[in-house]
């Protein structure tokens, strides 16, 4: 990669915000505690862009999302931060009933070019109300685009695309990925929505994973490779639009599918992917689809309990071996 450096996910997001705010004066940020951000993403931005464009808000999630919608409707490109993805639930009404629908309800008079950035995912013993992975909930709502980057490179490139897009975007940032490093080019580049990244080629099984589960899936692929099994790891990168073509092409080649997510299995991302594969490529499957995710259970505090909630690299490898028979 030209001009690439090793930086963290947090810095990749921050770089995208800085570059987009420099490029386009209609881009601005709003959210709680942006000047001393919970995960540090926006620290220091107020110094460069000023308090007009880096807007600290009261703890009012409805007012944050509402103001972002109204600003987007009137020519701005707001990037709202919801401090934890769990708090999206506070603002479900403006997200689901206004942001997602106003373009349709006005038959195209309105457009809502806004982004909601929010950290999701577990791993910090933050308990049931600060650890959720609610990405799949929003796949059920027409009118929202959803990004789920797994690397610093995708975080920066997808966020730039999201900010320039005229549709509203929910942008999930996995908390553990804030601190992971990756190669990220300096300066401008974008990553398109709706285009999966084949993280590893293989012929024996397709593993579709998102966010922090990509790393586990790749580790599982290493374990499997040592046993002579070649797994193909597919990262959809966005859940809407969802690149089913790439997933189905992979399944047609490998004849087996395992999905891996951090959210609950029931009604999850894997449920949708498995159903679509069943509709479009059932005849190619040599084995039942396997869905891995968290148990249908709120997220516990104790690390002893939290760590059994989620798919592990060994668990993924075992699931693959199970369907390989």
């Amino acid at each position, binding site marked *: 990669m030209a001009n690439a450096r090793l930086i963290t996910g947090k810095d990749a997001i921050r770089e995208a915000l800085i570059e987009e705010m420099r490029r386009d004066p209609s881009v601005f940020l709003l959210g709680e505690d942006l000047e001393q951000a919970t995960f540090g993403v926006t620290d220091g931005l107020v110094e460069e862009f000023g308090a007009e464009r880096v807007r600290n808000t009261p703890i009012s999630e409805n007012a944050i999302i509402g*103001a972002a919608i109204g600003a987007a409707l009137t020519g701005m490109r707001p990037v709202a931060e919801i401090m934890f993805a769990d708090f999206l639930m506070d603002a479900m009404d403006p997200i689901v009933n206004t942001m997602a629908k106003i373009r349709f309800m006005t038959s195209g008079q309105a457009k809502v070019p806004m982004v909601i950035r929010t950290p999701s995912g577990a791993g910090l013993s933050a308990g049931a109300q600060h650890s959720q992975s609610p990405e799949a909930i929003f796949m059920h709502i027409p009118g929202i685009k959803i990004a789920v980057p797994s690397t610093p490179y995708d975080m920066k490139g997808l966020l730039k695309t999201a900010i320039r897009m005229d549709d509203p975007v929910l942008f999930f940032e996995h908390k553990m990925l804030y601190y992971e490093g990756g190669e990220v080019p300096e300066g401008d580049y974008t990553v398109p929505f709706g285009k999966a990244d084949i993280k590893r080629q293989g012929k024996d099984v397709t593993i579709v994973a998102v966010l922090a589960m990509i790393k586990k899936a790749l580790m599982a692929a290493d374990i499997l490779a040592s046993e002579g099994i070649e797994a193909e790891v597919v990262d959809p990168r966005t859940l809407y639009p969802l690149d089913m073509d790439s997933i189905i092409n992979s399944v047609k080649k490998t004849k087996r599918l395992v999905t891996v997510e951090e959210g609950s299995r029931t009604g999850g991302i894997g449920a949708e992917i498995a159903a679509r594969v069943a509709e479009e490529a059932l005849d190619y499957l040599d084995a039942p689809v396997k869905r891995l995710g968290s148990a249908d259970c709120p997220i516990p505090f104790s690390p002893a309990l939290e760590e059994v909630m989620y798919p592990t690299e060994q668990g993924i490898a075992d699931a693959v071996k199970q369907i390989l028979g």
Partner: protein
Amino acid sequence: MDKGFLLNLYETMFRIRTFEEEVKKQFEDGNIPGFIHLGSGQEAVSAGACAAIKKDDYIGSTHRGHANLMAKGARTDRMMAELFARETGYCKGRGGCLHITDMSVGSIGANGIVAAGIIVANGAALSAKLKNNKKVILTFFGDGAANQGKFHEALNLASVWALPNIFICENNLYGEATPQSKHMRIKDISTRAQAYDMPGVSVDGQDVLKVYDAVSEAVKRARDGKGPSLIEAKTYRFHGHHIGDPETYRTREEVEEWMEKRDPVKLFKSRLLKEFKADNKEIDAIEKKILKEIEDAVQFAAESPMPDPAVLTQNVYV
């Protein structure tokens, strides 16, 4: 006061009344589907308030929003067509009564969710502030909406950020079937402004000039960068919450008394004739013109095509 301005106010109020009464008739004749919330009785609030702002200023509207939109300058034929669920309607039959919107006249949307528009309005005001274009927004909502958490979040944020947002509570004394006395302990919703350190006034919402004056003052304040205001207009809806409401929560006598003594259209007409020396002919000409306009609107709507199911999913995304 300029007579032309006053006659325009009357024309707006008479247009709203005539439109709303025609909508009722068309609904009862089976030509309009869905839930219809009429604004008859509340004309002076929209007319007086929108007369105090400019064409390129914004409004945010509600489920009872026909009057807001007409007062801001929307066309009645395209509104009627929307209520008839036709392709020629403002929202091409995708919105209906609850979501009827014409963004070209500055509306940023009408909401079926009570209080949903209040939080969104701050964003339009924020745009105006960031672009420094001196625009303002009038944010309409009901007495019932003032009990939503969103009301608190929105007024607090508008105050903290000194947004050019004029919050206009159309207190028609009922939230659906619940009278104000059973949904809040205070009488004057404007007193809630104190909690946000913004001006709050209650005005007679049946007096179009009082509404105009109060809103004008708040608009001036907003354009001067001094932030939001809360205006409560005491008003009354002449019809049920929606057409078909059995109205068990209020007496017929109460409704008739308001219609007889507190009808904003009649009150202003008699003032025009007596106090402002308008002559009957001028007023007749306005009324005739509007009656014809609404008749034409119905014809336009009735003759318009239904939306095409083949393009159902258009405009979900850009």
